[in-house]
Protein backbone atom coordinates (compact mmCIF):
# COMPACT_ATOMS: atom_id res chain seq x y z
CA UNK A 1 0.00 0.00 0.00
CA UNK A 2 1.28 3.41 -0.85
CA UNK A 3 0.36 5.71 1.96
CA UNK A 4 1.83 8.69 0.27
CA UNK A 5 3.52 11.44 2.19
CA UNK A 6 0.59 13.74 2.80
CA UNK A 7 -1.66 11.45 4.79
CA UNK A 8 1.06 10.56 7.27
CA UNK A 9 2.66 13.95 7.59
CA UNK A 10 -0.77 15.52 7.88
CA UNK A 11 -1.25 13.66 11.14
CA UNK A 12 -1.02 16.62 13.46
CA UNK A 13 -0.58 15.67 17.09
CA UNK A 14 3.06 14.67 16.75
CA UNK A 15 4.09 18.14 15.76
CA UNK A 16 1.46 19.90 17.80
CA UNK A 17 2.90 18.49 20.98
CA UNK A 18 6.02 20.48 21.57
CA UNK A 19 7.13 20.76 17.97
CA UNK A 20 8.83 17.40 17.62
CA UNK A 21 9.67 16.19 14.19
CA UNK A 22 7.01 14.02 12.59
CA UNK A 23 8.03 10.40 12.77
CA UNK A 24 10.07 10.80 15.92
CA UNK A 25 8.24 8.28 18.01
CA UNK A 26 10.22 8.77 21.20
CA UNK A 27 9.61 12.48 21.27
CA UNK A 28 5.99 11.98 20.33
CA UNK A 29 5.63 9.53 23.15
CA UNK A 30 6.51 12.10 25.78
CA UNK A 31 3.50 14.23 26.63
CA UNK A 32 4.48 17.82 27.12
CA UNK A 33 1.13 18.90 28.47
CA UNK A 34 0.39 19.06 32.17
CA UNK A 35 -1.09 16.16 34.06
CA UNK A 36 -4.60 17.56 34.06
CA UNK A 37 -4.55 17.71 30.29
CA UNK A 38 -3.32 14.18 29.79
CA UNK A 39 -4.86 12.17 32.59
CA UNK A 40 -8.55 11.35 32.80
CA UNK A 41 -10.11 12.54 36.03
CA UNK A 42 -13.17 10.90 37.43
CA UNK A 43 -15.12 13.03 39.87
CA UNK A 44 -17.42 10.29 41.04
CA UNK A 45 -20.35 8.56 39.50
CA UNK A 46 -23.06 10.38 41.41
CA UNK A 47 -22.26 13.83 40.23
CA UNK A 48 -21.78 12.65 36.67
CA UNK A 49 -18.85 15.07 36.49
CA UNK A 50 -16.13 13.66 34.29
CA UNK A 51 -13.20 15.46 32.83
CA UNK A 52 -11.54 13.88 29.87
CA UNK A 53 -8.30 15.38 28.58
CA UNK A 54 -8.72 17.40 25.39
CA UNK A 55 -6.31 15.13 23.60
CA UNK A 56 -9.11 12.57 23.17
CA UNK A 57 -11.06 14.92 20.94
CA UNK A 58 -7.83 16.05 19.26
CA UNK A 59 -6.76 12.49 18.58
CA UNK A 60 -10.17 11.53 17.24
CA UNK A 61 -10.06 14.54 14.92
CA UNK A 62 -6.53 13.88 13.74
CA UNK A 63 -6.86 10.13 13.24
CA UNK A 64 -10.34 10.65 11.81
CA UNK A 65 -9.04 13.01 9.15
CA UNK A 66 -6.25 10.61 8.20
CA UNK A 67 -8.62 7.66 8.05
CA UNK A 68 -11.18 9.56 5.96
CA UNK A 69 -8.53 10.56 3.44
CA UNK A 70 -7.34 6.97 3.12
CA UNK A 71 -10.89 5.62 3.05
CA UNK A 72 -11.72 7.81 0.06
CA UNK A 73 -9.12 5.93 -1.97
CA UNK A 74 -11.15 2.76 -1.58
CA UNK A 75 -14.49 4.16 -2.68
CA UNK A 76 -15.01 3.38 -6.37
CA UNK A 77 -16.10 6.27 -8.57
CA UNK A 78 -17.16 4.64 -11.85
CA UNK A 79 -20.50 3.21 -12.92
CA UNK A 80 -23.04 2.34 -11.56
CA UNK A 81 -22.55 5.59 -9.71
CA UNK A 82 -26.14 6.62 -9.10
CA UNK A 83 -27.35 3.27 -7.82
CA UNK A 84 -24.28 2.00 -6.00
CA UNK A 85 -21.08 3.98 -5.64
CA UNK A 86 -22.74 7.22 -4.56
CA UNK A 87 -24.48 5.23 -1.84
CA UNK A 88 -21.23 3.71 -0.58
CA UNK A 89 -19.78 7.10 0.20
CA UNK A 90 -22.90 8.54 1.80
CA UNK A 91 -22.58 7.43 5.44
CA UNK A 92 -18.77 7.92 5.61
CA UNK A 93 -19.25 11.46 4.27
CA UNK A 94 -21.67 12.27 7.08
CA UNK A 95 -18.93 12.18 9.67
CA UNK A 96 -18.98 10.00 12.73
CA UNK A 97 -16.83 9.86 15.83
CA UNK A 98 -14.17 7.56 14.33
CA UNK A 99 -13.80 5.94 17.74
CA UNK A 100 -13.44 2.38 16.42
CA UNK A 101 -10.63 2.92 13.90
CA UNK A 102 -8.89 5.34 16.25
CA UNK A 103 -8.79 2.63 18.92
CA UNK A 104 -7.05 0.36 16.42
CA UNK A 105 -4.41 2.94 15.53
CA UNK A 106 -3.89 4.11 19.11
CA UNK A 107 -3.45 0.56 20.40
CA UNK A 108 -1.02 -0.32 17.63
CA UNK A 109 1.01 2.84 18.22
CA UNK A 110 0.95 2.48 21.99
CA UNK A 111 2.62 -0.90 21.47
CA UNK A 112 5.20 0.59 19.13
CA UNK A 113 3.80 0.23 15.62
CA UNK A 114 3.91 2.94 12.95
CA UNK A 115 0.73 4.66 11.85
CA UNK A 116 1.21 3.26 8.35
CA UNK A 117 1.04 -0.32 9.61
CA UNK A 118 -2.34 0.18 11.29
CA UNK A 119 -3.99 2.61 8.88
CA UNK A 120 -5.36 -0.01 6.46
CA UNK A 121 -6.94 -1.96 9.31
CA UNK A 122 -8.45 1.25 10.66
CA UNK A 123 -9.97 2.02 7.25
CA UNK A 124 -11.35 -1.51 7.06
CA UNK A 125 -12.95 -1.13 10.49
CA UNK A 126 -14.63 2.13 9.50
CA UNK A 127 -15.92 0.59 6.25
CA UNK A 128 -17.30 -2.41 8.16
CA UNK A 129 -18.93 -0.13 10.71
CA UNK A 130 -20.66 1.89 7.99
CA UNK A 131 -21.78 -1.25 6.19
CA UNK A 132 -23.35 -2.62 9.36
CA UNK A 133 -25.01 0.73 10.05
CA UNK A 134 -26.83 0.47 6.72
CA UNK A 135 -28.03 -3.01 7.59
CA UNK A 136 -28.94 -2.01 11.16
CA UNK A 137 -31.00 0.92 9.94
CA UNK A 138 -32.98 -1.35 7.64
CA UNK A 139 -33.47 -4.00 10.31
CA UNK A 140 -34.48 -1.45 12.93
CA UNK A 141 -36.60 0.65 10.60
CA UNK A 142 -34.56 3.71 11.62
CA UNK A 143 -35.23 6.90 9.72
CA UNK A 144 -32.38 9.22 10.78
CA UNK A 145 -28.65 8.51 10.79
CA UNK A 146 -26.00 11.13 11.53
CA UNK A 147 -28.53 13.90 11.22
CA UNK A 148 -29.94 12.92 7.80
CA UNK A 149 -32.44 10.39 6.45
CA UNK A 150 -31.16 6.82 6.50
CA UNK A 151 -29.93 5.27 3.28
CA UNK A 152 -32.96 3.04 2.79
CA UNK A 153 -35.28 6.01 3.34
CA UNK A 154 -33.43 7.90 0.62
CA UNK A 155 -32.98 5.09 -1.90
CA UNK A 156 -35.26 2.23 -0.90
CA UNK A 157 -34.42 -0.99 0.89
CA UNK A 158 -33.11 -3.01 -2.11
CA UNK A 159 -30.48 -0.46 -3.15
CA UNK A 160 -29.48 0.28 0.44
CA UNK A 161 -29.12 -3.42 1.20
CA UNK A 162 -26.96 -3.91 -1.86
CA UNK A 163 -24.81 -0.92 -0.88
CA UNK A 164 -24.34 -2.38 2.59
CA UNK A 165 -23.25 -5.71 1.13
CA UNK A 166 -20.80 -4.02 -1.21
CA UNK A 167 -19.36 -1.87 1.56
CA UNK A 168 -18.80 -4.98 3.64
CA UNK A 169 -16.95 -6.66 0.76
CA UNK A 170 -15.00 -3.49 0.17
CA UNK A 171 -13.86 -3.45 3.78
CA UNK A 172 -11.71 -6.53 3.14
CA UNK A 173 -9.62 -4.76 0.52
CA UNK A 174 -7.53 -2.64 2.88
CA UNK A 175 -6.94 -5.68 5.07
CA UNK A 176 -5.54 -7.56 2.10
CA UNK A 177 -3.59 -4.54 0.88
CA UNK A 178 -1.93 -4.34 4.26
CA UNK A 179 -0.01 -7.53 3.47
CA UNK A 180 2.54 -5.21 1.84
CA UNK A 181 3.17 -3.59 5.20
CA UNK A 182 2.80 -6.37 7.72
CA UNK A 183 3.35 -9.57 5.75
CA UNK A 184 1.03 -12.42 4.77
CA UNK A 185 1.04 -14.28 8.07
CA UNK A 186 -0.11 -11.35 10.17
CA UNK A 187 -2.58 -10.44 7.44
CA UNK A 188 -4.04 -13.92 7.59
CA UNK A 189 -4.20 -13.70 11.39
CA UNK A 190 -6.12 -10.42 11.19
CA UNK A 191 -8.51 -11.95 8.64
CA UNK A 192 -9.25 -14.70 11.14
CA UNK A 193 -9.84 -12.04 13.78
CA UNK A 194 -12.20 -10.31 11.36
CA UNK A 195 -14.13 -13.52 10.81
CA UNK A 196 -14.50 -13.97 14.59
CA UNK A 197 -15.77 -10.43 15.00
CA UNK A 198 -18.27 -10.91 12.16
CA UNK A 199 -19.65 -14.05 13.81
CA UNK A 200 -19.95 -12.37 17.20
CA UNK A 201 -21.67 -9.31 15.72
CA UNK A 202 -24.11 -11.42 13.73
CA UNK A 203 -25.00 -13.46 16.82
CA UNK A 204 -25.54 -10.35 18.91
CA UNK A 205 -27.70 -8.73 16.26
CA UNK A 206 -29.73 -11.94 15.91
CA UNK A 207 -30.30 -12.04 19.68
CA UNK A 208 -31.64 -8.52 19.78
CA UNK A 209 -33.78 -8.82 16.65
CA UNK A 210 -35.13 -12.16 17.86
CA UNK A 211 -36.09 -10.71 21.23
CA UNK A 212 -38.07 -8.02 19.47
CA UNK A 213 -39.75 -10.36 16.99
CA UNK A 214 -40.78 -12.79 19.72
CA UNK A 215 -41.58 -9.96 22.14
CA UNK A 216 -39.35 -11.38 24.87
CA UNK A 217 -40.07 -9.61 28.17
CA UNK A 218 -38.41 -11.96 30.64
CA UNK A 219 -34.86 -10.83 29.96
CA UNK A 220 -32.36 -9.98 32.66
CA UNK A 221 -29.06 -8.15 32.89
CA UNK A 222 -27.06 -11.23 32.00
CA UNK A 223 -28.96 -11.60 28.71
CA UNK A 224 -28.39 -7.96 27.99
CA UNK A 225 -24.65 -8.12 28.72
CA UNK A 226 -24.12 -11.14 26.47
CA UNK A 227 -26.06 -9.49 23.65
CA UNK A 228 -24.24 -6.17 24.01
CA UNK A 229 -20.88 -7.93 24.20
CA UNK A 230 -21.53 -9.56 20.86
CA UNK A 231 -23.48 -6.86 19.09
CA UNK A 232 -21.60 -3.76 20.19
CA UNK A 233 -18.41 -4.48 22.06
CA UNK A 234 -16.78 -6.77 19.51
CA UNK A 235 -16.81 -4.41 16.55
CA UNK A 236 -16.78 -1.31 18.73
CA UNK A 237 -13.74 -1.95 20.89
CA UNK A 238 -12.56 -5.57 21.15
CA UNK A 239 -11.80 -6.12 17.47
CA UNK A 240 -10.10 -2.75 16.87
CA UNK A 241 -7.99 -3.12 20.02
CA UNK A 242 -7.03 -6.71 19.28
CA UNK A 243 -6.06 -5.91 15.70
CA UNK A 244 -4.05 -2.94 16.95
CA UNK A 245 -2.32 -5.17 19.49
CA UNK A 246 -1.56 -7.82 16.86
CA UNK A 247 0.06 -5.16 14.67
CA UNK A 248 1.85 -3.48 17.54
CA UNK A 249 3.21 -6.59 19.20
CA UNK A 250 3.44 -9.03 16.27
CA UNK A 251 2.08 -11.58 18.71
CA UNK A 252 -1.30 -12.83 19.78
CA UNK A 253 -0.34 -13.54 23.35
CA UNK A 254 -2.55 -12.08 26.09
CA UNK A 255 -5.28 -11.06 23.68
CA UNK A 256 -7.98 -12.16 26.15
CA UNK A 257 -7.41 -9.06 28.22
CA UNK A 258 -8.62 -6.98 25.28
CA UNK A 259 -11.89 -8.89 25.43
CA UNK A 260 -12.31 -7.87 29.07
CA UNK A 261 -11.38 -4.26 28.45
CA UNK A 262 -13.42 -4.05 25.25
CA UNK A 263 -16.42 -5.69 26.85
CA UNK A 264 -16.62 -3.24 29.74
CA UNK A 265 -15.93 -0.20 27.61
CA UNK A 266 -18.15 -1.33 24.74
CA UNK A 267 -21.17 -2.13 26.88
CA UNK A 268 -20.80 1.09 28.89
CA UNK A 269 -20.68 2.89 25.54
CA UNK A 270 -23.85 1.11 24.40
CA UNK A 271 -25.78 1.92 27.56
CA UNK A 272 -24.74 5.56 27.32
CA UNK A 273 -25.81 5.53 23.65
CA UNK A 274 -29.22 4.21 24.68
CA UNK A 275 -29.47 6.88 27.39
CA UNK A 276 -28.63 9.56 24.84
CA UNK A 277 -31.44 8.24 22.67
CA UNK A 278 -33.88 9.27 25.39
CA UNK A 279 -32.53 12.78 25.55
CA UNK A 280 -31.47 13.21 21.97
CA UNK A 281 -30.59 16.61 20.65
CA UNK A 282 -29.57 17.60 17.15
CA UNK A 283 -25.92 16.72 17.76
CA UNK A 284 -26.84 13.12 18.56
CA UNK A 285 -27.94 12.66 14.96
CA UNK A 286 -30.57 10.00 15.62
CA UNK A 287 -34.29 9.99 16.10
CA UNK A 288 -35.47 11.05 19.57
CA UNK A 289 -36.91 8.03 21.37
CA UNK A 290 -36.11 5.91 18.31
CA UNK A 291 -35.26 2.96 20.56
CA UNK A 292 -38.70 3.11 22.19
CA UNK A 293 -40.46 3.26 18.84
CA UNK A 294 -38.38 0.27 17.74
CA UNK A 295 -39.04 -1.66 20.96
CA UNK A 296 -35.30 -2.09 21.44
CA UNK A 297 -34.36 -4.20 24.47
CA UNK A 298 -32.27 -1.67 26.36
CA UNK A 299 -31.09 -1.99 29.93
CA UNK A 300 -33.70 0.62 30.91
CA UNK A 301 -36.48 -1.43 29.34
CA UNK A 302 -35.33 -4.64 31.02
CA UNK A 303 -35.18 -2.84 34.38
CA UNK A 304 -38.60 -1.22 33.91
CA UNK A 305 -40.20 -4.55 32.95
CA UNK A 306 -38.94 -5.98 36.23
CA UNK A 307 -39.75 -3.05 38.50
CA UNK A 308 -43.10 -1.94 37.07
CA UNK A 309 -46.44 -2.65 38.73
CA UNK A 310 -48.36 -5.61 37.32
CA UNK A 311 -50.76 -3.43 35.32
CA UNK A 312 -47.92 -1.29 33.99
CA UNK A 313 -45.97 -4.36 33.01
CA UNK A 314 -49.00 -5.74 31.18
CA UNK A 315 -49.46 -2.53 29.24
CA UNK A 316 -45.76 -2.29 28.44
CA UNK A 317 -45.74 -5.87 27.16
CA UNK A 318 -48.75 -5.14 25.00
CA UNK A 319 -47.14 -2.01 23.57
CA UNK A 320 -43.94 -3.87 22.77
CA UNK A 321 -45.92 -6.53 20.92
CA UNK A 322 -47.20 -3.98 18.42
CA UNK A 323 -45.39 -3.30 15.17
CA UNK A 324 -43.37 -0.08 15.16
CA UNK A 325 -45.86 1.83 13.01
CA UNK A 326 -48.63 1.13 15.52
CA UNK A 327 -46.69 2.57 18.44
CA UNK A 328 -48.01 6.13 18.82
CA UNK A 329 -46.09 9.09 20.27
CA UNK A 330 -48.41 8.99 23.29
CA UNK A 331 -47.42 5.35 23.91
CA UNK A 332 -43.75 6.23 23.71
CA UNK A 333 -44.25 9.14 26.11
CA UNK A 334 -45.92 6.75 28.55
CA UNK A 335 -42.95 4.39 28.27
CA UNK A 336 -40.52 7.24 28.96
CA UNK A 337 -42.51 8.24 32.03
CA UNK A 338 -42.54 4.65 33.21
CA UNK A 339 -38.75 4.55 32.96
CA UNK A 340 -38.62 7.65 35.16
CA UNK A 341 -41.07 6.23 37.70
CA UNK A 342 -39.18 2.94 37.96
CA UNK A 343 -35.81 4.66 38.29
CA UNK A 344 -34.63 2.79 35.19
CA UNK A 345 -32.71 5.70 33.72
CA UNK A 346 -30.76 6.33 36.90
CA UNK A 347 -30.20 2.59 37.26
CA UNK A 348 -28.78 2.32 33.73
CA UNK A 349 -26.56 5.36 34.27
CA UNK A 350 -25.06 3.87 37.44
CA UNK A 351 -24.73 0.48 35.78
CA UNK A 352 -22.77 2.08 32.94
CA UNK A 353 -20.56 3.96 35.39
CA UNK A 354 -19.71 0.66 37.06
CA UNK A 355 -18.77 -0.95 33.78
CA UNK A 356 -16.70 2.06 32.79
CA UNK A 357 -14.83 1.78 36.08
CA UNK A 358 -14.07 -1.84 35.32
CA UNK A 359 -12.92 -0.78 31.85
CA UNK A 360 -10.47 1.65 33.46
CA UNK A 361 -9.18 -1.17 35.65
CA UNK A 362 -8.72 -3.53 32.69
CA UNK A 363 -7.18 -0.74 30.64
CA UNK A 364 -4.55 -0.21 33.32
CA UNK A 365 -3.69 -3.91 33.13
CA UNK A 366 -2.94 -3.55 29.43
CA UNK A 367 -1.42 -0.13 29.05
CA UNK A 368 0.16 0.89 32.34
CA UNK A 369 3.38 -0.96 31.67
CA UNK A 370 3.86 0.71 28.27
CA UNK A 371 5.91 3.86 27.76
CA UNK A 372 3.97 7.10 28.14
CA UNK A 373 2.43 8.37 24.95
CA UNK A 374 -0.60 10.29 23.80
CA UNK A 375 -2.01 7.07 22.36
CA UNK A 376 -1.78 5.44 25.76
CA UNK A 377 -3.54 8.37 27.41
CA UNK A 378 -6.15 8.32 24.65
CA UNK A 379 -6.97 4.71 25.43
CA UNK A 380 -7.01 5.38 29.18
CA UNK A 381 -9.37 8.30 28.70
CA UNK A 382 -12.04 6.58 26.61
CA UNK A 383 -13.85 5.27 29.69
CA UNK A 384 -14.65 8.82 30.78
CA UNK A 385 -15.03 10.25 27.29
CA UNK A 386 -18.01 8.03 26.51
CA UNK A 387 -20.05 9.91 29.09
CA UNK A 388 -19.13 13.30 27.75
CA UNK A 389 -19.86 12.70 24.09
CA UNK A 390 -23.11 13.80 22.58
Amino acid at each position, binding site marked *: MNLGGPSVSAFMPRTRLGGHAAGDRQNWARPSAGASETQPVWHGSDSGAFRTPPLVAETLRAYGATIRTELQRYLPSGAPKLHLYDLLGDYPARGGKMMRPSICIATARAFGADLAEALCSAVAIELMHNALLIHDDIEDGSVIRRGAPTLHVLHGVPLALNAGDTLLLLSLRPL*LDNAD*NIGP*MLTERILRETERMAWESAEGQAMELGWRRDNCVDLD*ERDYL*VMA*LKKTAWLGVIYPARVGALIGTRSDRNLDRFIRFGFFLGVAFQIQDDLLNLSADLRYGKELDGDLFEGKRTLMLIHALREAQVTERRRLTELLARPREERRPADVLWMRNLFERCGSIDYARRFAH*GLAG*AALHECADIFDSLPDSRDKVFMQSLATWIFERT
Partner: protein
Amino acid sequence: MTKQERKKRQQPSRSAPKRSFVSHGQLGAARETGTASHAAGIDDVIADAVSLGYRVVEEQLQQGRRAARSFRNGADSSPETQDIMAVIERLVRVTRDATIAWLDVVTAVTSRKEGKAASVSADTDTKPAAATVGVSPSNGTGGGAISVEVKSKRPAKVTLDLRPASPRFVPMVHALHPKTPGKRPLTDVRFRLSPDDGRGVLVISVPDDLEPGNYTGVVVDSATDEPGGTLCVRVHAED
Protein backbone atom coordinates in the same frame (compact mmCIF):
# COMPACT_ATOMS: atom_id res chain seq x y z
CA MET B 1 -57.78 -21.84 81.32
CA THR B 2 -55.06 -19.44 80.52
CA LYS B 3 -55.44 -17.47 77.41
CA GLN B 4 -52.57 -18.41 75.07
CA GLU B 5 -50.77 -15.65 73.29
CA ARG B 6 -51.67 -15.61 69.64
CA LYS B 7 -48.83 -16.69 67.33
CA LYS B 8 -47.63 -14.14 64.83
CA ARG B 9 -45.34 -14.25 61.86
CA GLN B 10 -42.16 -12.30 62.17
CA GLN B 11 -42.14 -9.08 60.26
CA PRO B 12 -40.03 -9.58 57.07
CA SER B 13 -36.95 -7.47 56.86
CA ARG B 14 -37.83 -6.46 53.30
CA SER B 15 -40.81 -4.44 52.18
CA ALA B 16 -40.97 -5.56 48.55
CA PRO B 17 -40.48 -8.78 46.60
CA LYS B 18 -36.91 -9.69 45.71
CA ARG B 19 -36.98 -9.44 41.96
CA SER B 20 -33.59 -8.04 41.27
CA PHE B 21 -31.01 -10.19 39.49
CA VAL B 22 -28.68 -9.51 42.39
CA SER B 23 -30.69 -11.76 44.65
CA HIS B 24 -29.71 -14.78 42.61
CA GLY B 25 -26.55 -16.84 42.98
CA GLN B 26 -23.38 -15.95 44.79
CA LEU B 27 -23.74 -12.28 44.21
CA GLY B 28 -27.03 -12.13 46.01
CA ALA B 29 -25.70 -14.28 48.82
CA ALA B 30 -22.76 -11.98 49.31
CA ARG B 31 -25.10 -9.03 49.33
CA GLU B 32 -27.38 -10.54 51.97
CA THR B 33 -24.68 -11.69 54.30
CA GLY B 34 -23.50 -8.44 54.31
CA THR B 35 -20.51 -6.79 53.67
CA ALA B 36 -19.18 -7.17 50.18
CA SER B 37 -19.70 -3.83 48.57
CA HIS B 38 -21.36 -2.10 51.51
CA ALA B 39 -18.16 -2.27 53.49
CA ALA B 40 -16.24 -0.81 50.63
CA GLY B 41 -18.80 1.92 50.21
CA ILE B 42 -19.61 0.96 46.64
CA ASP B 43 -23.00 1.62 45.13
CA ASP B 44 -24.92 -1.68 44.90
CA VAL B 45 -25.86 -1.20 41.28
CA ILE B 46 -22.27 -0.49 40.32
CA ALA B 47 -20.90 -3.42 42.32
CA ASP B 48 -23.51 -5.75 40.84
CA ALA B 49 -22.90 -4.51 37.32
CA VAL B 50 -19.17 -5.07 37.57
CA SER B 51 -19.52 -8.43 39.28
CA LEU B 52 -22.04 -9.70 36.75
CA GLY B 53 -19.97 -8.21 33.96
CA TYR B 54 -16.91 -10.18 35.01
CA ARG B 55 -18.95 -13.38 35.22
CA VAL B 56 -20.40 -12.87 31.75
CA VAL B 57 -17.10 -12.04 30.11
CA GLU B 58 -15.27 -14.90 31.82
CA GLU B 59 -17.96 -17.32 30.62
CA GLN B 60 -17.58 -15.97 27.11
CA LEU B 61 -13.82 -16.34 27.31
CA GLN B 62 -14.20 -19.95 28.43
CA GLN B 63 -16.53 -20.65 25.52
CA GLY B 64 -14.07 -19.00 23.16
CA ARG B 65 -11.23 -21.13 24.49
CA ARG B 66 -13.27 -24.32 24.10
CA ALA B 67 -14.21 -23.34 20.54
CA ALA B 68 -10.57 -22.55 19.74
CA ARG B 69 -9.46 -25.92 21.11
CA SER B 70 -12.00 -27.84 19.08
CA PHE B 71 -11.20 -25.81 15.99
CA ARG B 72 -7.50 -26.38 16.46
CA ASN B 73 -7.99 -30.12 16.88
CA GLY B 74 -10.09 -30.22 13.73
CA ALA B 75 -7.56 -28.19 11.81
CA ASP B 76 -4.70 -30.39 12.92
CA SER B 77 -6.38 -33.43 11.42
CA SER B 78 -6.07 -32.01 7.94
CA PRO B 79 -2.52 -30.74 7.51
CA GLU B 80 -3.17 -29.25 4.12
CA THR B 81 -5.49 -26.64 5.60
CA GLN B 82 -2.59 -25.43 7.67
CA ASP B 83 -0.43 -24.84 4.70
CA ILE B 84 0.19 -21.17 4.09
CA MET B 85 -0.48 -21.45 0.40
CA ALA B 86 -3.69 -23.32 1.03
CA VAL B 87 -4.89 -20.44 3.14
CA ILE B 88 -3.99 -17.88 0.50
CA GLU B 89 -5.43 -20.00 -2.29
CA ARG B 90 -8.64 -20.48 -0.36
CA LEU B 91 -8.86 -16.76 0.14
CA VAL B 92 -8.27 -16.16 -3.54
CA ARG B 93 -10.91 -18.70 -4.46
CA VAL B 94 -13.46 -17.20 -2.12
CA THR B 95 -12.83 -13.70 -3.34
CA ARG B 96 -12.99 -14.83 -6.98
CA ASP B 97 -16.34 -16.41 -6.34
CA ALA B 98 -17.68 -13.42 -4.47
CA THR B 99 -17.87 -10.79 -7.13
CA ILE B 100 -16.06 -9.43 -10.09
CA ALA B 101 -15.26 -6.37 -8.03
CA TRP B 102 -12.82 -8.54 -6.18
CA LEU B 103 -10.62 -9.28 -9.13
CA ASP B 104 -8.18 -6.53 -8.39
CA VAL B 105 -8.10 -7.56 -4.75
CA VAL B 106 -7.13 -11.02 -5.88
CA THR B 107 -4.49 -9.54 -8.10
CA ALA B 108 -3.16 -7.58 -5.16
CA VAL B 109 -2.86 -10.72 -3.11
CA THR B 110 -1.26 -12.91 -5.71
CA SER B 111 1.09 -10.36 -7.23
CA ARG B 112 4.45 -10.07 -5.57
CA LYS B 113 5.78 -6.56 -5.46
CA GLU B 114 9.37 -5.66 -4.77
CA GLY B 115 9.91 -5.23 -1.08
CA LYS B 116 12.54 -4.98 1.55
CA ALA B 117 15.06 -7.78 1.58
CA ALA B 118 15.00 -9.91 4.66
CA SER B 119 17.24 -12.53 6.02
CA VAL B 120 16.30 -15.35 8.31
CA SER B 121 18.82 -17.92 9.33
CA ALA B 122 18.55 -20.98 11.45
CA ASP B 123 21.18 -23.49 12.26
CA THR B 124 20.00 -26.04 14.72
CA ASP B 125 20.93 -29.52 15.74
CA THR B 126 18.09 -31.77 16.79
CA LYS B 127 18.12 -34.78 18.99
CA PRO B 128 16.30 -37.95 17.99
CA ALA B 129 12.50 -37.75 17.99
CA ALA B 130 10.58 -34.54 17.51
CA ALA B 131 12.19 -31.19 18.21
CA THR B 132 11.04 -27.60 17.83
CA VAL B 133 13.35 -24.63 17.50
CA GLY B 134 12.34 -20.98 17.16
CA VAL B 135 14.05 -18.71 14.69
CA SER B 136 13.57 -14.96 14.71
CA PRO B 137 13.57 -13.14 11.41
CA SER B 138 15.59 -9.97 11.39
CA ASN B 139 12.90 -7.59 10.21
CA GLY B 140 9.68 -9.15 11.34
CA THR B 141 8.67 -10.09 7.82
CA GLY B 142 5.81 -12.48 7.87
CA GLY B 143 4.62 -11.35 11.21
CA GLY B 144 7.05 -13.11 13.52
CA ALA B 145 9.43 -15.95 14.16
CA ILE B 146 9.65 -19.18 12.23
CA SER B 147 9.77 -22.41 14.20
CA VAL B 148 11.35 -25.61 13.00
CA GLU B 149 9.79 -28.96 13.84
CA VAL B 150 11.77 -32.10 13.06
CA LYS B 151 10.37 -35.60 13.38
CA SER B 152 13.25 -38.02 13.22
CA LYS B 153 14.49 -41.07 15.08
CA ARG B 154 18.03 -40.06 14.31
CA PRO B 155 19.92 -36.85 15.03
CA ALA B 156 19.41 -34.26 12.31
CA LYS B 157 20.93 -30.84 11.79
CA VAL B 158 18.76 -28.23 10.07
CA THR B 159 20.14 -25.11 8.43
CA LEU B 160 17.58 -22.65 7.11
CA ASP B 161 18.70 -19.50 5.34
CA LEU B 162 15.81 -17.33 4.18
CA ARG B 163 16.41 -14.24 2.08
CA PRO B 164 12.96 -13.25 0.82
CA ALA B 165 12.87 -10.58 -1.87
CA SER B 166 9.39 -9.48 -0.94
CA PRO B 167 7.48 -8.91 2.29
CA ARG B 168 4.81 -11.16 0.80
CA PHE B 169 7.20 -14.04 0.52
CA VAL B 170 5.38 -17.32 1.18
CA PRO B 171 8.04 -20.02 1.43
CA MET B 172 7.80 -23.44 -0.14
CA VAL B 173 10.25 -26.31 -0.57
CA HIS B 174 9.75 -28.96 -3.25
CA ALA B 175 12.24 -31.55 -2.00
CA LEU B 176 15.71 -31.83 -0.51
CA HIS B 177 18.19 -33.84 -2.54
CA PRO B 178 21.30 -35.75 -1.45
CA LYS B 179 24.71 -35.16 -2.94
CA THR B 180 24.62 -38.38 -4.94
CA PRO B 181 22.29 -38.18 -7.95
CA GLY B 182 19.62 -40.85 -8.17
CA LYS B 183 19.44 -41.44 -4.45
CA ARG B 184 16.17 -41.02 -2.60
CA PRO B 185 15.34 -37.35 -1.74
CA LEU B 186 13.83 -36.03 1.48
CA THR B 187 10.36 -35.01 0.39
CA ASP B 188 8.35 -34.58 3.58
CA VAL B 189 9.28 -30.93 4.08
CA ARG B 190 6.72 -28.13 4.23
CA PHE B 191 5.94 -24.75 5.69
CA ARG B 192 2.67 -24.22 7.53
CA LEU B 193 1.01 -21.68 9.80
CA SER B 194 0.91 -22.42 13.50
CA PRO B 195 -2.68 -22.38 14.76
CA ASP B 196 -1.36 -21.24 18.15
CA ASP B 197 0.15 -17.95 17.19
CA GLY B 198 -0.17 -17.64 13.41
CA ARG B 199 3.57 -17.85 12.88
CA GLY B 200 5.36 -19.91 10.26
CA VAL B 201 6.50 -23.40 11.07
CA LEU B 202 8.94 -25.47 9.02
CA VAL B 203 7.98 -29.12 9.43
CA ILE B 204 10.45 -31.85 8.46
CA SER B 205 9.76 -35.59 8.79
CA VAL B 206 12.77 -37.80 8.25
CA PRO B 207 11.81 -41.35 7.19
CA ASP B 208 13.40 -44.08 9.30
CA ASP B 209 14.97 -45.72 6.28
CA LEU B 210 16.41 -42.59 4.69
CA GLU B 211 20.14 -42.84 4.07
CA PRO B 212 22.33 -40.68 6.30
CA GLY B 213 23.76 -37.66 4.55
CA ASN B 214 23.29 -34.05 3.59
CA TYR B 215 19.99 -33.09 1.91
CA THR B 216 19.74 -29.64 0.40
CA GLY B 217 17.19 -27.66 -1.54
CA VAL B 218 16.08 -24.19 -2.53
CA VAL B 219 13.30 -22.39 -0.70
CA VAL B 220 11.13 -20.68 -3.28
CA ASP B 221 8.34 -18.14 -3.19
CA SER B 222 5.24 -20.24 -3.66
CA ALA B 223 3.62 -17.66 -5.93
CA THR B 224 6.49 -16.86 -8.26
CA ASP B 225 8.82 -19.83 -7.77
CA GLU B 226 11.61 -17.30 -7.33
CA PRO B 227 14.35 -18.56 -5.00
CA GLY B 228 14.29 -17.01 -1.55
CA GLY B 229 16.68 -19.09 0.49
CA THR B 230 18.15 -22.50 1.10
CA LEU B 231 17.40 -25.38 3.40
CA CYS B 232 19.84 -28.06 4.41
CA VAL B 233 19.13 -31.12 6.58
CA ARG B 234 22.03 -33.31 7.66
CA VAL B 235 20.76 -36.71 8.75
CA HIS B 236 23.21 -38.54 10.95
CA ALA B 237 23.66 -42.28 11.24
CA GLU B 238 22.12 -43.82 14.32
CA ASP B 239 24.19 -43.45 17.48
